[in-house]
């Protein structure tokens, strides 16, 4: 028996009612805060040949039951020879923060947000049936029992096969995330136009997860 995906200590972080009220308040506060307009730096290269198949995933959610299929689909696509890009934005950035980073950000709101949703691929919650961490723990146990690959392993395999994970420049700034907070091997941060260009290439499947 190996260690569960979510450590029991994460239970402490969750008091659902309080969390939602605080989140609502903080989201409102953050949305009012001025966010500097950012420019797309280096647009990811669209596939050179038009007959190359592509998969583009916008990974918006940081939840376990969303990041898992994102990683499974991107691994499968890369294995099938598709050029695969995953645009990671909003809560979807959190799984790509280094596991050992507990609190990230520069101001108290960013730090609070990170504290309430612990970043890192090994600290994901379920979108439903989370039950103070019991849900993810049970899913972790079941997936190990049935030998299903875990998100950290899938992330490593995806990166090894050349899946490009492109962080969203704008939400990185809004959450106060720096490049050094994020795991190694991510693509150059980009914006909406760069992703739309990828999504509108021929032979391209696009998913919003």
């Amino acid at each position, binding site marked *: 028996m190996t260690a569960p995906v979510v450590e029991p200590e994460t239970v402490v972080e969750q008091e659902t009612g309080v969390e939602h009220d605080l989140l609502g308040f903080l989201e409102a506060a953050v949305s009012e805060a001025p966010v500097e307009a950012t420019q797309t730096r280096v647009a990811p290269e669209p596939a050179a040949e038009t007959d190359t*198949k592509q998969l583009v995933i916008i990974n918006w959610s940081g939840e376990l039951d969303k990041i898992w299929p994102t990683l*499974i*689909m991107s*691994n*499968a696509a*890369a*294995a*099938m*020879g*598709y050029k695969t890009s995953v645009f990671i934005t909003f809560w979807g950035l959190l799984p790509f923060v280094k596991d050992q980073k507990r609190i990230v950000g520069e101001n108290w709101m960013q730090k609070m947000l990170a504290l309430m949703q612990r970043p890192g691929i090994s600290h994901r919650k379920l979108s439903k049936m989370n039950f103070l961490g019991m849900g993810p723990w049970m899913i972790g146990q079941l997936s190990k029992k*049935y*030998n*299903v*690959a875990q998100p950290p392993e899938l992330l490593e*395999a995806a990166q*090894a*096969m050349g899946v490009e994970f492109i962080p969203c420049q704008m939400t990185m700034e809004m959450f106060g995330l720096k490049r050094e907070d994020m795991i190694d091997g991510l693509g150059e941060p980009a914006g909406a136009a760069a992703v739309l260009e990828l999504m509108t290439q021929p032979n391209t499947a696009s998913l919003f997860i």
Partner: protein
Amino acid sequence: MTLTEPNIAATAKVTTLDARALKCPMPIVKTAQAIKTIASGELLEVLATDPGATADFAAWSRSTGNELVEQTIVDGVYRFVLRRK
């Protein structure tokens, strides 16, 4: 789906990949990695137990152009023989 008797063509070098007990998507992920280690025309034999593998290997073969030469099932173990294009 055609199931044929085990009959590895003795014409090319065969490399075996044991993907038994692995679940989707790892059998094709490991296969994609393993096929890069063999030369064009050589064979890769993959053993798998994931029931989803039958559809996945057919799709993987069509998509990558590596021919699925043989496909058998013996005692719940799927065996796929692929030729690198």
